[in-house]
C-alpha cells in the first residue's frame, strides 16, 4: 500500500507527525516525523489496522470519536495530560514524549474516499519550558519570602535595640535622679556633722541622722530593685520553676507588711482560698507580691483599705491587689509598665518610688508565663491583677 497515495508525500517534509487512516481504520500513511518519534518505519506499519499496531486505542473513548471523524464529524483532540501516549514515543533519556494529537476528517474527491488525518505535535519541550519558568517563578517567590523574613528580623532587632537604649536611658536617669539626690543629701549632712560635730548636742545629731535612716532604707530598696532588674536585663537572672502554694507566699507578705499598714492606719485584708498550687519561680513571684502590696500602701490614704484576693481561673491563678487610694488617670496608667517612659509618683505620705517596681513585676510575671494589668480610676483606687500558671494537679 506504501506509495499508493503519493499526494500525501508532502507531509514528509513538515515537523508534525501525520498518520492517515481509512474508514476501515487501516493505516495508509505514516510520515517521516512519526517514524523518527516512534522508531516505526512506514513499511512496517502501513496496511495494518490502527488497533493492531496500537492495541490501547481499541477502546470506546478512541473508537467512538474517531468513527465520528471518519463519518465527517468535527475534529477531536487528544491532549497530552489526558492521553499520555496516543502513539507511544520516548526521548533519548527514555522519558515519554508529550504528544498532542488532533484527528480531523478529510474527503478525497479524486479517490472518492474518506480519511481521518491524525496529526501529532510535540509538546515535550514546551512542557519543559513551562516547568522551568514555574521553577524560576517559585525561586523568585521564595527569594521574596526570604527577604521579607530578613526585613522582619531587622525590624525586630531594631525594636530590641530601641528597647535596650531605653533601658540604658532608664538606668542613667535612676542613677542621676534617684541615687544622686539622696546620696548628695547624705554627703552634705555627714560633712556638716563631721566639721561641726562638737557643736551639736546629741538630740540635734539624732535629728540630723533620723531622716538619713529613712532615706537609707529607701536607697537600699532602690539598689535591691536595680540589682534584680540588671540581672534580668543581662540575662543572668536564673528562674527556678517549682510547685508551691501561692497562698502561703501571699500570707507571708501580708504579715511582713502588717506593721507598715498599721503605722499608716490602713486595713490589709485577704480573700483567699486555703491552697492554690502554682508552677513558677518562687523568688520572682514573691518580689511581685511585695512590690504590689508596697505600692498599694504607698498610694492609699490613712483609713483606707487594701484587699488581696486570689482565685483559680482556667489554667491560671489570678491574684488581685486592690486599694481604695488615689487611683490613676489614663495617661498615668499608660506609662506604668513601660521602660521607655520615666514615671514615678510620690505616695500619699510623700513616699518616693523608683519607677522600676512595676517594670520588674511585668518582666517577672511574663518570664513566669503569666500576664499583669491594671484597672484604675482617679480618686477611687486601683486594682492590679496578675496571673501565674497552675500546677497540673491544681488544674485537674
Amino acid at each position, binding site marked *: 500500500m506504501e506509495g499508493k497515495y503519493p499526494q500525501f508525500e508532502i507531509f514528509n517534509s513538515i515537523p508534525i507527525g501525520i498518520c492517515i487512516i481509512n474508514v476501515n481504520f487501516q493505516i495508509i500513511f505514516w510520515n517521516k516525523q512519526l517514524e523518527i518519534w516512534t522508531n516505526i518505519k512506514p513499511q512496517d506499519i502501513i496496511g495494518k489496522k490502527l488497533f493492531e499496531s496500537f492495541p490501547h486505542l481499541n477502546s470506546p473513548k478512541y473508537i467512538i*470519536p474517531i468513527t465520528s471523524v471518519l463519518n465527517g464529524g*468535527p*475534529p477531536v483532540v487528544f*491532549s497530552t*495530560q489526558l492521553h499520555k501516549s496516543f502513539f507511544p514515543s520516548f526521548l533519548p533519556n527514555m522519558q515519554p514524549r508529550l504528544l498532542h494529537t488532533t484527528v*480531523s476528517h478529510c474527503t478525497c474527491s479524486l479517490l472518492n474516499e474518506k480519511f481521518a488525518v491524525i496529526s501529532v505535535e510535540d*509538546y515535550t519541550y*514546551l*512542557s519543559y519550558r*513551562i516547568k522551568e519558568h514555574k521553577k524560576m517563578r517559585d525561586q523568585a517567590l521564595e527569594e521574596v519570602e526570604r527577604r521579607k523574613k530578613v526585613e522582619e528580623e531587622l525590624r525586630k532587632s531594631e525594636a530590641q535595640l530601641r528597647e535596650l537604649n531605653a533601658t540604658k536611658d532608664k538606668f542613667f536617669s535612676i542613677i542621676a535622679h534617684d541615687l544622686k539626690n539622696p546620696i548628695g543629701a547624705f554627703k552634705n549632712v555627714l560633712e556638716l556633722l563631721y566639721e561641726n560635730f562638737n557643736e551639736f548636742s546629741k538630740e540635734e545629731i539624732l535629728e540630723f541622722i533620723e531622716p538619713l535612716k529613712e532615706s537609707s532604707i529607701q536607697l537600699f530598696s532602690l539598689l535591691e530593685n536595680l540589682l534584680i532588674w540588671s540581672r534580668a536585663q543581662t540575662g543572668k537572672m536564673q528562674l527556678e520553676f517549682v510547685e508551691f502554694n501561692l497562698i502561703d507566699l501571699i500570707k507571708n507578705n501580708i504579715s511582713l507588711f502588717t506593721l507598715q499598714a498599721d503605722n499608716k492606719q490602713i486595713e490589709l485584708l485577704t480573700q483567699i482560698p486555703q491552697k492554690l498550687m502554682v508552677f513558677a519561680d518562687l523568688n520572682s513571684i514573691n518580689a511581685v507580691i511585695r512590690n504590689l502590696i508596697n505600692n498599694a500602701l504607698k498610694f492609699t490614704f490613712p483609713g483606707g483599705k487594701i484587699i488581696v484576693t486570689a482565685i483559680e481561673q482556667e489554667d491560671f491563678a489570678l491574684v488581685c491587689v486592690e486599694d481604695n487610694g488615689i487611683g490613676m488617670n489614663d495617661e498615668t496608667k499608660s506609662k506604668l509598665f513601660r521602660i521607655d517612659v520615666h514615671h514615678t509618683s510620690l505616695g500619699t505620705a510623700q513616699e518616693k518610688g523608683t519607677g522600676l517596681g512595676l517594670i520588674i513585676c511585668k518582666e517577672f510575671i511574663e518570664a513566669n508565663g503569666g500576664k499583669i494589668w491594671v484597672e484604675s480610676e482617679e480618686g477611687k483606687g486601683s486594682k492590679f491583677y496578675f496571673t501565674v500558671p497552675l500546677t497540673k494537679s491544681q488544674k485537674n
Partner: protein
Amino acid sequence: MELTPEHIDVIQEMINIGVGQAANMLNSLSGKHVKLSVPIVEVIKSEQLIDFFQAKNVFDNYSSVTLTFSGSLSGSSKLVFPTESASKLVMAFTDQSQDELDFDEIQAETLSEIGNIVLNSLVGSLANLLNINLNYSIPLYLTGTIDQILSADISFKDDGLILLARTHFSIESLEIEGDFILFIDLKSVSEFVNSLDNFVKEGGFFTK
C-alpha cells in the same frame, strides 16, 4: 429573518441531546461522574453579548475554545470560561491539586480537548438532527479579555445570529459555570431557519 419561540424550543431540545452525549464522553474520558446542563438558550445581539460578559465584571481573563464550521451553514461555536474556572475544570479532569491555579499551555491544551468534546456534541447534535453537512476547522484555544476573544472571531463581526447558553459542569463536588455561544453567519441565517422549519414540518423529534 428571526427565530420564533418555537424555533428556540427546538434548538434547546437539540442542545439538550448534545449535552447528554457530551456528558457521556466526559464520563468515559475522566472516569468520574460528570453532569452537564445547559438550562436556557437565548438569542441576543452582539452588543448585548459584550454587555453580558462585562456585567459579570468579576474576571479579567477568559479562556475559550472555538470550533468554526462551514458548508451548508457557516459560523462558529465557542465555549468561554473565566480562566480560573477553566483551570479548576482541567484540574478536576487531571486529578491535579486545586491549590495551584496556574493556567499554562499544557492545561490550555487539555481544555481544548474538553471544550472540543462539548462543542462537537452540541454542534454535532444540531447538524445531525437538522440533517446538515458541515466542514469543521481544528478547535482553537484562545485566552484574553472578552473583547479580545470575541473580536478574534470573524462570525462575531458578521452581524448574523447569536445564541447564548450558560453551561453548568458538576464534577464530583466541583461546580463550574461556562458559556456556550453559537454564531450563525448572516448569509446562513435563512438556511438555518429553513432547516428548523423543515425539521418541525417533518415531525420534529418524534420522527428521529
